[in-house]
């Protein structure tokens, strides 16, 4: 972990595309941060604590004088303040560039990578797509996306069960997405932990595959509650699996009344046009 800002140096970040086969990792030699990420004079934690007596410009609290016994220091600080602040910086950077970022989440095996492979192939020449690929280990998924024609940064989280804002900020820097393009952040396959971490995305998309069963929205409500779009995937398997589309839709409404839902199959292509239209509607026009 970076001793200065606490960003996760344990993750290995590898650029798989853009022609040069460059590798970067989060070790000290190449450790850099997202655009606009400064350590000097920056404030951590809450934004409104700059004028308190006993705090310097960096937000540090300096205890003055001898203190008899233990004393209480009120912090009232969000635990994820640093992550959320980094995420917000990435979001502003992406907006200023005219780049749409989507956080794609699901359980392992729901079809995130297959969806992106087909998306990269079918949108080639129409919409610029690049991918930040998160997995605990291997660059297998990154290679698949790369072979489909998209620029990829592979992040291996090691022991980590989710991507965080620091990993994504460094991934964005390596990826250097062009204006008017889409970055899909394929999170680690997991319906629990990724729900807590803002990555700087514009929208959260959750995949629920028919092979997993219809009860996922109520079993993992924290994840589905935040979804802007839920993709019901692998619908080509509907004749072969016990998946009640009506109860799935009803459960999703209970957990997330505002989420949009689409059914598709990345194997047959059925329903993919709706997903492409959804992406196209949100992609900013290229900046001059």
């Amino acid at each position, binding site marked *: 972990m970076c001793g200065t800002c*606490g960003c996760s140096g344990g993750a290995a970040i590898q650029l798989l595309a853009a022609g040069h086969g460059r590798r970067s990792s989060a070790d000290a030699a190449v450790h850099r941060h997202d655009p606009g990420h400064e350590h000097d004079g920056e404030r951590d*934690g809450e934004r409104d604590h700059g004028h308190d007596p006993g705090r310097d410009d960096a937000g540090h609290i300096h205890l003055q004088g001898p*203190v008899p016994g233990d004393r*209480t*220091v009120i912090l009232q600080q969000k635990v994820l303040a640093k992550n959320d602040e980094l995420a917000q910086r990435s979001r502003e950077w992406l907006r200023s560039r005219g780049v749409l970022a989507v956080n794609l989440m699901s359980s392992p095996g729901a079809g995130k990578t297959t969806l992106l492979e087909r998306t990269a192939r079918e949108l080639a020449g129409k919409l610029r797509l690049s991918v930040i690929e998160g997995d605990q280990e291997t660059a297998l998924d990154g290679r698949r996306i790369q072979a489909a024609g998209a620029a990829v940064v592979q992040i291996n989280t090691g*022991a980590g069960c989710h991507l965080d804002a620091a990993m994504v900020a460094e991934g964005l820097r390596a990826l250097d997405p062009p204006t008017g393009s889409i970055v899909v952040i394929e999170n680690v396959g997991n319906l629990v932990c990724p729900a*807590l971490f803002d990555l700087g995305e514009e929208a959260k998309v959750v995949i629920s595959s028919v092979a997993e069963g219809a009860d996922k929205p109520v079993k993992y409500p924290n994840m589905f509650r935040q979804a802007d779009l839920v993709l019901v995937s692998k619908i080509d398997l509907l004749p072969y699996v016990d998946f009640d589309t009506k109860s799935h839709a009803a459960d999703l*409404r209970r957990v997330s009344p505002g989420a949009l839902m689409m059914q598709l199959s990345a194997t047959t292509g059925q329903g993919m046009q709706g997903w492409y239209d959804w992406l196209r509607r949100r992609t900013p026009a290229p900046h001059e």
Partner: protein
Amino acid sequence: MHELAITEDVIDAVTGRLPGARITCVRLEIGALSGVVADSVRFCFDLVTEGTDLQGARLEISEPSALCKCRVCGSEFAPDGPVILCPCGSADIAVLTGQDLKITSVMVA
């Protein structure tokens, strides 16, 4: 097990705000709808604080229950689980309290 990363964030936040101070107690608020399991944070705390300014510190966690308001019938109610439904049947809910995950205070030697 995001509680490990969450607990590391707690250590970083405290040492970042109070560099060099010897911390004897950390007080957290983990709301019922925060998505974090307090027992898992307790499990991780001693492991993560070892070798830091927080080593040996006591961990106190308050777990405030959630309060929600129905946007359809307007009543306020405490949800009985993470799937939030108003007794009137509506799922159109605003969460008033219970989502916070924060460091309320620390004690310094």
